[in-house]
């Protein structure tokens, strides 16, 4: 197969699958008509991502990326989490086939949306 061992490992044993009860933020990215959909739930405690779950409709790399990015997000401050790039995710996974690089974008985008959702729900002053 065209995937690295790390991708396959995450794909076969994805971390953080599922949803959170009453999540603090929810982000979804992608479009089922043209490929993958990723949904990320976050729990935020003291400005830090305390927990993080995903559900993904997509190919092997999409699932591995979801698993990887939720692992990376946990324990990070919102600011740190927002700084995660698609390249970070891909390199943590030992690289992705070129035609799959767009998937890694979805992960970062879904996480950003979840954080934005969290911030949108908070009173303005707290978001500072």
């Amino acid at each position: 197969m065209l995937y690295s061992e790390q991708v396959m490992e995450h794909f076969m044993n994805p971390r953080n699958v599922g949803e959170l009860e009453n999540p603090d933020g929810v982000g979804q990215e992608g479009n089922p008509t043209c490929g993958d959909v990723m949904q990320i739930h976050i729990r935020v405690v003291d400005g830090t991502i305390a927990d993080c779950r995903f559900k993904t409709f997509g190919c092997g790399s999409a699932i591995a990326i979801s698993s990887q990015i939720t692992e990376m997000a946990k324990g990070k401050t919102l600011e740190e989490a927002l700084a995660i790039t698609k390249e970070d995710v891909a390199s943590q996974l030992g690289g992705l086939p070129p035609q799959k690089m767009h998937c890694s974008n979805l992960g970062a985008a879904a996480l950003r949306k979840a954080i934005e959702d969290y911030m949108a729900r908070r009173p303005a002053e707290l978001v500072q």
Partner: protein
Amino acid sequence: MNPVYADHIATTPCRPEVFEAMKPYFMEHFGNPLSLHDFGQTARDAIEAAREQVAGLIGAKTEEILYTSSGTESCNFAIKGMTHAYQKKGRHIVTSSVEHHAVANPVKFLEKNGCEVTTIPVDSAGRVDPDQVARALRDDTALVSIMLANNEIGTIQPVAEIGRITRERGIVFHTDASCAVGNVPVDVEALQVDALSLSGHKFFGPKGVGALYLRKGTRITPLIHGGIQEGGRRAGADNVPGIVGLGAAAVLAREEMNDRVARVTDLRNRLISGILERVDEITYNGHPELRLPGNVNIAVNYVEGESLLLLLMHKGILASSGSTCTSRALKASGVLTAIGLSEQACQGSLQMTLGPGNTDAEVDYILDVLPEIVSKLRAMSPLYHRKD
């Protein structure tokens, strides 16, 4: 456990008999059929014997078989060569919306280069309506090309009916039978076609060899010009071992045809009915009966095909999919779209194609494994959740 090969549409292994037949032609009888001397004669005899074997499989006359390097080359040869040879009639081509790239892409090329193309749609089972073909024919129609069996959904087209119509109108008709020949009975007289493409590696022959059946009297412009091989219609050094292998595969297919069809149809029916019993929210694509014996094409809702393939592969099951992510061109299958599947359903495409070498135990194993895999992926799918 050995892998379960359920991807016979992609390619098939050479049968041992085929490889044995080919073997002496690599090092011992290595002559060029064009050479006048004895080594040439041995090679010439071998490819002529194979020509008779290939002709025998499809009810053709020996001299109506032209060797090529693949089903794709045969299709290109037929489509470009016949359109060129009949260009005085006009430059209009009629084809279907479910053709393999081997037909669709040369047609597209001709369209960009001055031909006009009418593409006949298919119904939800993937069938072309012969009446629609009849209505599409024009005085300037140079060629009709409609496949015999579809490589994705397995649907078999009403080629004989179309052949009757084109013959009446005096228009030449090519059918791409690349994944049909050797797997279902094919008779060029019954089909009333003027040209037919076939491919060795689809029925336990070697890769790198195909053939074009060209009815006596049908004109064609060569695709590959050069020496006088194939009566000057297809130049290039003959792939002698490959051709011998194609002949051997044709002989086996002819002898075993009834058994193959019966056995593979039975395996397929067990597989699809087992799946439909065990997994909900599945669409079974293609025509229920008029389909290739080994073809099981389904859309598994709420999950994506590549993930399915990877998990199946982890369990030793080799299959294929028409999803965007499994396509190197990153486009969902045009065939699934043509039969009206939603784009989301296309993403859940899974194709398992069985052959006579598959066993009941292998089908049982797939049926054991597939439901868990689907459940695992659905549990991860945000779309599936939504639905509850």
